[in-house]
């Protein structure tokens, strides 16, 4: 926030004006992409919320969301859970991201890989793993019971649903925070200390305010993403934890009631858009046009925030001092490290548990497994269907990451650099695919792709996955660009660089962290996506999540765990290979 604070619009006059004025045009290809592959197909489905089967206008379905006691209750649960998840995720992730940002780039990559590992395991497998690990006959439940707790009541309640969702989203939260945290100029902290601030004060008055953009980005993303969860509440929750995503799937996919399903979709969409606008008002994420003055959050809000931070900093300072004096051997940084490692360990629990489950000799997911065998790996490797699905998932993930980063980054660049009033509208528009239930997007795309003969093709899947990945990548890149010090570009331009040269030599290297985070998130989202594969793939073009889904008609068998373990292995090896290569090319 502060860096863009400093880059006053006057400075831009030194750059080439045509560069600035034209930047909104950069958004055209990306906007066209979403208009064709998202807005058009989706609107045609969502209008059925008010257009019944008979082609007449009716607001009955829409009203029933509010008038029916059970529906309004589910709506309330959904938004409450989303808010709770957001708060928990941000609180848990912040210290972890802060701790990470103090490590070298290479260390960060390694730790980030560990944090992202659970993301590579299908949501389906992870949730079933929780059913096994926390079930009433599990070791953990027995342990809880022996400690005097209700070990047989660990599942099917609000707490475990929150736990499941937070566990899924913390890696996403951390990856969204990291670019901003890394951009905070560390010399500002030492400057503060030199000027007499204690480390506590430096954190609260310098680091925290500067990192708020990352927090806001992450919070927004978590809030909107958690609104759409359905596997976790339906497997781990009781009926009281029903979330609206479940209702939408039931209505559209099981009851063929497109009208009621779309009505839920519309209400969810409106609620989420209100959330996005509120967020934008408070944190100024979109950087709406009109120079940096307007692009900042409401001045009063900001001043209040800064005042609050410094107050807390001053208040906590004696506490920290007292702590340091009392526990001499245990500095706060060590405590932070221990906390961070604990969170990472917790994140890895299902991953670590899935490995022995895959080597089981039994025919069910069980922990601990009854015996050792390789039979499920044999099944996996012997099946051309599983092999093809795995290969396709990797291929489509790469293609989707490439396409999405182009779409999202050009638009993010346009939004940040442009002073056009359109920038704010584009921001909201680019957030919207995150809010519309994937099922609605999938069915809309089916109609569109049927016209283009893209059903059951890899290209269809790549396009569909890109639509879904675009908002997340967009917001990650956007928050990086917002934190970028554009005066450096101006300096390059003043020194005679062409805009192109300035972009490739100055801007790109500095924002590469955000671009990399964007690529990884796009790949991960594509790798995990199920609904698009279900509808657009039609069973003929099968990705790994679709194959996992198809395989569980009768039971969850350990082939799913074996597949997850193979994917984890491949990803880890690829990562280490890349590290080794970069080590040889550029010895640290």
């Amino acid at each position, binding site marked *: 926030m502060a860096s863009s604070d400093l880059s006053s619009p006057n400075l831009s006059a030194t750059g080439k004006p045509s560069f600035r004025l034209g930047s909104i045009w950069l958004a055209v290809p990306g906007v066209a992409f979403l208009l064709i592959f998202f807005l058009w197909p989706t609107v045609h489905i969502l209008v*059925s919320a008010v257009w019944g089967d008979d082609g007449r206008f009716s607001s009955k379905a829409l009203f029933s969301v509010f008038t029916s006691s059970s529906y309004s209750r589910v709506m309330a649960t959904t938004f409450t859970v989303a808010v709770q998840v957001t708060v928990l995720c941000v609180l848990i992730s912040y210290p972890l991201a802060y701790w990470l940002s103090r490590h070298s780039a290479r260390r960060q990559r390694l730790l980030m890989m560990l944090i992202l590992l659970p993301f590579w395991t299908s949501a389906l497998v992870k949730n079933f793993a929780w059913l096994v690990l926390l079930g009433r006959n599990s070791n953990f439940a027995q342990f809880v019971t022996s400690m005097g707790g209700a070990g047989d009541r660990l599942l099917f309640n609000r707490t475990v649903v929150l736990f499941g969702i937070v566990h899924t989203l913390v890696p996403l939260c951390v990856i969204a925070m990291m670019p901003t945290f890394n951009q905070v100029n560390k010399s500002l902290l030492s400057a503060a200390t030199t000027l007499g601030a204690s480390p506590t004060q430096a954190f609260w008055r310098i680091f925290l305010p500067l990192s708020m953009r990352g927090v806001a980005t992450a919070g927004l993303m978590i809030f909107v993403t958690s609104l759409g969860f359905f596997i976790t509440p339906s497997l781990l929750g009781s009926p009281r934890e*029903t979330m609206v995503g479940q209702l939408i799937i039931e209505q559209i996919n099981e009851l063929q009631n497109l009208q009621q399903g779309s009505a839920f979709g519309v209400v969810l969409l409106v609620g989420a858009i209100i959330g996005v606008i509120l967020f934008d008002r408070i944190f100024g994420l979109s950087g709406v046009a009109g120079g940096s003055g307007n692009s900042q959050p409401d001045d009063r809000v900001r001043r209040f925030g800064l005042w609050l931070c410094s107050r807390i900093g001053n208040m906590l300072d004696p506490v920290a001092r007292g702590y340091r004096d009392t526990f001499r051997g245990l500095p706060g940084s060590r405590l932070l490290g221990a906390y961070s490692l604990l969170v990472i360990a917790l994140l890895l629990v299902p991953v670590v548990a899935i490995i022995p489950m895959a080597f089981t000799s039994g025919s069910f997911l069980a922990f601990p497994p009854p015996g050792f065998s390789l039979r499920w790996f044999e099944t996996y490797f012997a099946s051309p269907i599983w092999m093809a699905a795995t290969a396709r998932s990797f291929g489509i993930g790469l293609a989707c990451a490439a396409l999405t980063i182009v779409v999202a980054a050009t638009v993010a660049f346009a939004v940040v650099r442009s002073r056009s009033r359109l920038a704010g509208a584009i921001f909201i528009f680019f957030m919207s695919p995150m809010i519309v239930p994937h099922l609605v997007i999938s069915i809309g795309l089916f109609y569109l792709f049927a016209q283009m003969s893209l059903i059951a093709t890899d290209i269809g899947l790549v396009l569909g996955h890109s639509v879904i990945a675009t908002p997340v990548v967009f917001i990650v890149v956007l928050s990086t660009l917002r934190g970028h010090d554009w005066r450096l570009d101006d300096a390059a331009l003043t020194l005679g660089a062409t805009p192109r040269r300035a972009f490739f030599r100055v801007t790109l290297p500095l924002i590469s962290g955000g671009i990399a985070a964007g690529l990884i998130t796009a790949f991960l989202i594509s790798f995990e996506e199920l609904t698009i594969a279900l509808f657009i793939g039609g069973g003929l073009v099968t990705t790994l999540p679709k194959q996992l889904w198809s395989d569980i008609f009768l039971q969850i068998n350990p082939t799913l765990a074996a597949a997850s373990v193979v994917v984890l292995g491949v990803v880890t090896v690829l990562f280490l290979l890349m590290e080794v290569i970069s080590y040889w090319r550029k010895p640290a």
Partner: protein
Amino acid sequence: MTRHMLNRRTLLKATVLGSGTLAMPSILTRSGFAAESLTVADVGGAAGDAIRAAFCEPFKKETGVQVINVAHDPDPVTQFKLMVDTKTYLWDACMMIPDYIFRLQEGKNYIAPLDLKDETGDMVPGMLTENWLGFSVFGILMAYNTEKYGANGPKNWADFFNPEKFAGRRGLYRAGWGSLEMALLADGVAPDKLYPIDVDRAFKSLEKIKKDVSVWWTSGAHNTQILQSGEVDMSDTWSARVYGAIQGGAKLTTVWQGLYSVDGWAMPINGPKQSLAREFIRFCMRADRQAAYSNLVANGPTNKKAFDAIAPERARILATDPANFAGLVPLDPRWWSQSNRQMVKKRMDEWLLS
């Protein structure tokens, strides 16, 4: 909806013209399938493997036509409708229960006529209709944990609905499909008097065990997992599922009282490969093929002659075994129409959330 969709389609066409070039590479992908091939959609998982081994591969051996079987969603009706509405015939035949067939004919008809006759007279009556061939009979019944109850487990649905007599955690299907019938059986309704379902009475009966149902399961795998891991002591379930769990070593046993339904083939209306698909479905009527299928998945055949090739101990675990079948009545797809399903769903949600 149809008219509305048509408008939508013409509108879509206009936007799509410009992106025509994008469609080019897809032609390459789609034409990858040989001319003489069929695509059929089944329920996937173990049943999909069995269909491949018992029907698809032998069909290729005899006719040279390759049949690719793919898995569809647990409820394929939406996908099926999309396919027909957009004339994107991904599947030449689809595995469905009579409920789905019925729902795909409510209003607009989505199912092609089958035009097959029971030439040998070996089919169980009702398993071959004008547009559907049933080949996989399954029971909707009760399973309970033998470690918990030993030999003195619940004997019928009245016991299941009696938590004083049989304490323990229960699982029930959240959709109400089947579980309402069980609630009525427990309340003393005669099996042949289940339909039309007295919904008020069913919910009154469910009220008795509301606090004892700890899991309202939502999918097949969910159901198997909670039974197998002992998360619940008893639950409603499907025959092939619980048999799979027992085979895997789970301490479970079945109570053959409840309903049965049948999975079978149907073709999308106006599909391009109907005559070929019809030949494949005719092939699936054969006794030897059905026996091969029932030997792989614990679902019963619909060709009476198939039992000649099924070992007696295998036949005993199938829903079609006379001893098992006596306790089952057919699930009535006509009652579970669109409007009734919607009504039950809404009522169930209100009841569960209150």
